[in-house]
């Protein structure tokens, strides 16, 4: 087997280019290398101007998400060897504005995330004196949704978020669902107002790609469908018992 592989990397300089283009680099093909290692090799040895985000190298920080051969993946846990003999195409995540090369603008996602209030909301004057005890079953109810690392691979994979930039999107809804399912939380009503809008859950057409590409095994599609059921029940309830706040 060849001991090198070609990496076709998408380049875009906002001040110079009008269109992104691909640049090929020949990098060593090592059995223990991830795609991120190859990108770091390019940056260190071949072209220092290449821009990309990374941090932890172990699938926890969620910053190195890119499109590898058309599929959104974390580059730190994607083996280079899997694409031998190559070439491998690396681009920025789809459906996000590109800042430079492989770096995308996350502001829109951050704003959406904040909108759904992904933290524990209390309506009462709650000042715990000690740990808030949860049973294993109560933890189990939301645990998988709490594993999200905000890598936004699901937004890049979701065709709806490509079609409608207002769609709140898989990760934000999954995280809202995570707090709704938490026995300590009391913010369900507030979140429902945001999430049951058309740009919330109803934009989702159950393509399911979000759950397929999630590197942490979170199932945002399930969260959205469960939320649809809750929102539908609430819709019928508000229809039958018009809004007199209890």
């Amino acid at each position, binding site marked *: 087997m060849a001991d090198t592989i070609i990496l076709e990397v998408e380049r875009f300089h906002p001040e110079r280019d009008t269109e992104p283009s691909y640049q090929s680099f020949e990098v060593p093909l090592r059995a223990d290398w991830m795609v991120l290692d190859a990108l770091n090799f390019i940056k260190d040895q071949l072209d220092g101007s290449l821009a990309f985000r990374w941090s932890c190298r172990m699938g926890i920080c969620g910053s190195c998400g890119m499109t590898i051969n058309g599929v959104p993946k974390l580059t730190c846990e994607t083996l280079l060897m899997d694409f031998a003999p190559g070439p491998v195409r690396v681009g920025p995540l789809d459906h996000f504005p590109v800042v430079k090369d492989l770096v995308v603008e996350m502001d829109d996602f951050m704003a959406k995330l904040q909108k759904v209030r992904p933290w524990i909301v209390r309506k009462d004057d709650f000042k715990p004196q000690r740990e808030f005890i949860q049973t294993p079953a109560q933890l189990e109810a939301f645990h998988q949704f709490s594993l999200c690392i905000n890598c936004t691979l699901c937004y890049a994979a979701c065709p*709806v978020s490509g*079609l409608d930039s207002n769609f709140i999107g898989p990760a934000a809804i999954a995280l809202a669902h995570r707090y709704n399912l938490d026995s300590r939380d009391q913010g369900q009503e507030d979140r429902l107002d945001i999430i*049951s*809008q*058309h740009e919330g859950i*109803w934009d989702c057409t159950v393509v399911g790609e979000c759950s397929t590409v999630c590197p942490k095994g979170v199932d945002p599609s399930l969260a959205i469908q469960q939320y*649809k059921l809750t929102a*539908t029940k609430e*819709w019928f309830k508000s229809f039958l018992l018009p809004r007199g706040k209890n």
Partner: protein
Amino acid sequence: MSSAKRSNEPIVWFLFGVGGFFAAYFLPIHIMLYGLAFPLGLAPDPGYDKTYALLQNPLTRLYLFVLIMFCFFHAAHRMRLTLSDILNMRHLNTILAFVCYGGAIVGTVAAIWMLAVVH
């Protein structure tokens, strides 16, 4: 917060969801029996008279009405989303909704009419 506009999508999604249940679990039984098994002789054909007698029971008619109505709305919703997203017709959303759900309503009314006039 509560001033945010909630979507009216739940009603069509509810019809779609229930229709999905009927389309997945019940419709295949009818297709298997009346579409394949009886005509191909894989199962003894009950024949016209027995099927007709079954239809005299109001419960059969009620079942067929529910089955047909929900399946129509399931198909309408799926058709609307397919056209709007896959064929990129989002800007025609109102027209698509009118045609798809309108079609389902027409189909449902036709089913009611047929179930009512069969004697």
